[in-house]
């Protein structure tokens, strides 16, 4: 079974970086497969790094990156600040939808004789007045709380 590591590996890599080899270390690399592999790979990758970092490419400017990240942060902060309003608006839409459906169902009930034959529908309609009241009241409450929040924000 091959060894996973060698105690001399760090010394070999240091020597590779600095170029300061001693005879003993060179002989060791010749006889140790772990260090030979490590040296080969390290030299290749360091050369790749040297070539990549010496390429004349224009990196994005740091001012632009700073500006972009500030913009992202502000966007995130604004989203957070307007979250309560969004929440209230969603509730208001929901409550309004319930009220509107109650209204439409009553219209349908008045327009057809369907409810006469359907006991279950009658049961639903008997409760729908209460639901509509709750829905309407919730809508008004959401609008009121939203308005108060806006007024409070103005101050």
């Amino acid at each position, binding site marked *: 079974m091959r060894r996973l590591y060698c105690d001399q590996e760090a010394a070999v890599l240091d020597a590779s970086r600095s170029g300061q080899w001693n005879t003993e270390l060179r002989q060791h690399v010749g006889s140790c497969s772990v260090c030979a592999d490590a040296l080969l790979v390290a030299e290749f990758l360091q050369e790749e790094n040297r070539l*990549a970092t010496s390429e004349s490419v224009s990196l994005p400017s740091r*001012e632009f*990156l700073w*500006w*972009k*990240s*500030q913009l992202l942060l*502000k966007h995130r902060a604004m989203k957070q*600040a307007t979250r309560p*309003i969004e929440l209230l608006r969603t509730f208001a839409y929901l409550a309004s939808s319930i009220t509107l459906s109650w209204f439409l169902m009553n219209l349908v009930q008045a327009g057809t004789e369907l409810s006469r034959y359907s006991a279950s529908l009658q049961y639903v309609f008997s409760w729908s007045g209460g639901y509509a009241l709750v829905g309407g009241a919730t809508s008004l409450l959401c609008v009121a709380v939203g308005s108060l929040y806006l007024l409070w924000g103005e101050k």
Partner: protein
Amino acid sequence: MSIGLPDRAVLPSGKPCAAPVGKIAEDAEKKTSMDEAAFRALYDRTARPLWAYLLRISGDRDVVDDLLQESYCRFLSAQLPQMNHAESKSYLFRIATNLMNDRWRQRKLITTLDEVEQVTEEHLEARAQMRQAFLLLKPRERQLLWLAYVEGSSHREIAGMTGLRATSIRLLLFRARRRLAGVLRVCARPSKEKLSV
């Protein structure tokens, strides 16, 4: 720096928000983990190495700038505790590594060599071929090798950057190194010898 925002935040409906943008902007700046001068220093120190890392590991020049920008933006918008230079760099490389991994998962990056083109031994010549040989490795192996042999990171640091367990780094690194060394030796052989392999 002015970033040209309106005086008030605008709701999705198009109406202005009650809270003034100035206050929101101030709050946002407080959430940045470092000031602009510190960021400039960090950028000057890390941009080139990070660019080289992204280029060599992703193998796709077209996405490098994009990944670089995203890495810095995520770094700046993360609410981080006070970090020293080494920790900041390490965290930045971690973000970049995760971004690359995300792209590989979404198949937006295709850079394992068997997916790009099948390379026969006749094609393996000089550095360009060695570079392609490097792409023969799995993305994770490339990351491990680069972090260990170029950035000089310890096993523990590599584990932090890649999300792997520190105890498995040694074995994974050994396998990756052996694979790459094997391919590099093939590249280094004279052409006639390669053909006879």
